């Protein structure tokens, strides 16, 4: 069985900046894989290449053995590649419920014109979409807030709403972009439990960009480290923690005496 996600030799250049250079990455079934690296290392750019928002100059992305490099973003999402956004993908002026309904787009069976005409089939489908959204919100404990406008909610709750939207795309692999940013350490710790719970109960595979080291070490099965657009190291979290290149990338050069 091929890995869920198989990225080979992805490279992209923006003007004079080589943002990514020959990055390889694999994510296996039911794994939680971490992607770490200093700011500006190219992590979010890498996500944008995987999901098809940027066309990489070179390299390929295979999803469950299928080459999706040529597919547009929305088709990859429909196949089961869901993602969250570092700066949140919510529409701030809409309610929580509306946002989660929007995210189910790819799995709504009626056509746009049928929806305009208010055909009975579309109305039935809309009820199902609503129920589905409510189930997802209930699952994440957001149901009581479903009528609230997202922009008025606390940041952590908005992040959860963003996660609910990613789940509503019915993902098979979830690409999380800094899920713990803006959280206190103990919240980040609980986030780990939540993600593991999601993985187990929803049968997900997770790739996550994350800065919070204890979370990565405690949660991830495998870790990739990106630095200046290149893969610096990969391995089990404990190995990575001690990897001299990783330590120096994060903390600056360590002189010989110290190492």
């Amino acid at each position, binding site marked *: 069985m091929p890995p869920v996600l198989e990225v080979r030799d992805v490279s992209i250049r923006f003007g004079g900046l080589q943002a990514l250079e020959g990055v390889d990455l694999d994510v296996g079934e039911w794994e939680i894989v971490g992607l770490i690296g200093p700011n500006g290392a190219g992590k979010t750019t890498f996500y944008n290449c995987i999901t098809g928002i940027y066309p990489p100059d070179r390299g390929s992305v295979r999803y469950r053995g299928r080459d999706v490099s040529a597919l547009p973003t929305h088709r990859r999402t429909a196949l089961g590649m869901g993602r969250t956004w570092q700066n949140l993908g919510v529409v701030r002026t809409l309610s929580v419920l509306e946002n989660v309904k929007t995210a189910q*787009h790819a799995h709504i069976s009626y056509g746009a014109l049928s929806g305009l005409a208010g055909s009975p089939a579309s109305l039935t489908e809309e009820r199902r979409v609503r129920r589905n959204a*409510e*189930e997802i919100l209930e699952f994440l404990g957001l149901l009581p807030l479903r009528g609230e406008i997202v922009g008025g909610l606390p940041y952590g*709750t908005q992040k959860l709403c963003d996660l609910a939207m990613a789940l509503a795309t019915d993902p098979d692999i979830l690409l999380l972009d800094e899920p713990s940013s803006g959280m*206190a350490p103990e919240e980040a710790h609980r986030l780990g439990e939540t993600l593991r719970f999601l993985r187990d*109960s929803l049968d997900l595979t997770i790739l996550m960009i994350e800065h919070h080291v204890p979370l990565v070490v405690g949660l991830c099965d495998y870790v990739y480290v990106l630095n200046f657009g290149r893969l610096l190291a990969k391995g089990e979290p404990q190995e990575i923690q001690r990897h001299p290149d990783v330590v120096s990338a994060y903390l600056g050069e360590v002189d010989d005496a110290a190492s």
Partner: protein
Amino acid sequence: MAAAAEALQRVEFRPSRSGWIARAAVMAAIALAIIAAPLLADDVRDQWIGYAAVYMVIGLSVNVITGHAGQISLGHQAFVGIGAFTSAYLVARSGISFFIALPVAGLTGAFMALVLGLVALRIRGLYLALVTLAFGQMTETTIFSIRGFTGGGAGADAPRPSLFAGHQAFAYLCLMVVAVFLLVDWRFVKSKAGRAIVSIRNDERVAASLGINVTAYKLFAFVLGGFIAGVGGSLFAHWNRSVATGSFGLSTALVWVLMTVVGGLGSRAGVLIGSAFFAVFQLVVGALAKGASFHWPIVGDVLVQTLSPLLGALLLLLTLTLFPGGIGQQLLPVRRWLAGGPVSTRGHHRAGAAATAAPGSEPGATAKPPHAAAGVPVPAARDEAPAEPAPTAGEPAVRVRRPRGGGRT
């Protein structure tokens, strides 16, 4: 379960029985006033009502492209004009029924909008505004100058159908079209396409990552807006009984954008009121002044008709600085009340904030599925999760499924 959830959402406010009766009475009164207005009005006023309804249709079309999709269109006269001339040509020259010409005019408007939409896929913001502006001007000087199609400077005849020949009957016809497009707009906002387009307006990359075909739905918004504009153009032509190129200049297109912005982008009621106001204001000023002009120092003669754009500019300034949501924003308390809410949300907001705080105040609580918190064991068998009634997520909305990836697209 659904009922319980329903109860959760509407905790704070429930109108009393008399409250509901009052709301129903107000709604009925508004509906009745609109329905009865053409009956009570004299011939001149019926003309005004018809004109206002034509503007409402045009306002709704601007609302789709600029309000919902967030794409500025300064070339709207191209869509409206093509519909007007097509309809006039079909009815007057080809002897085709008005009721066939009306949707055909819509289709021509949709086609024009599709062409512009293809451009809008590539550029945005200021550049899009400039391109739409140029597009409108270009249409004016090319298609609208074809003498055989538009009748040149003299214009083309656009006779009304015999059943709706009178001003009163025609006003009703226009109001019916408004009603149809109001329904379409309502269903649009409440359905898949509308949500997709709002998401695209918010952020195209996020929309794509939610599985939305950004290209297709952007074009869809243009096509829908163009269709409504084309139908509006047809009504415009037949309201006037003739149509000439001079009616579709840039200044007119600007008024259409203005009335929609002042009405409130995205707000149906606001757009209707804004459109009707601008339509009637033009006519009233025109009728009062009968072409009289002020003699001002320096600027010389200023036609009273130019007051309309001037007022538009003033209202736009007021809108942008004081109430960016336009008339629609001002109507919000009324709408909320009619929908069964309280007039004031002040107490309501506090209740809402409390509801927010309850699950979220202990910050981690939100970031945790409730059953994980309660220590409910995670269903071990991945593929038969729903068998036992896990109390909260009986069947996870996000299905458990496999295999994946093959044959989906």
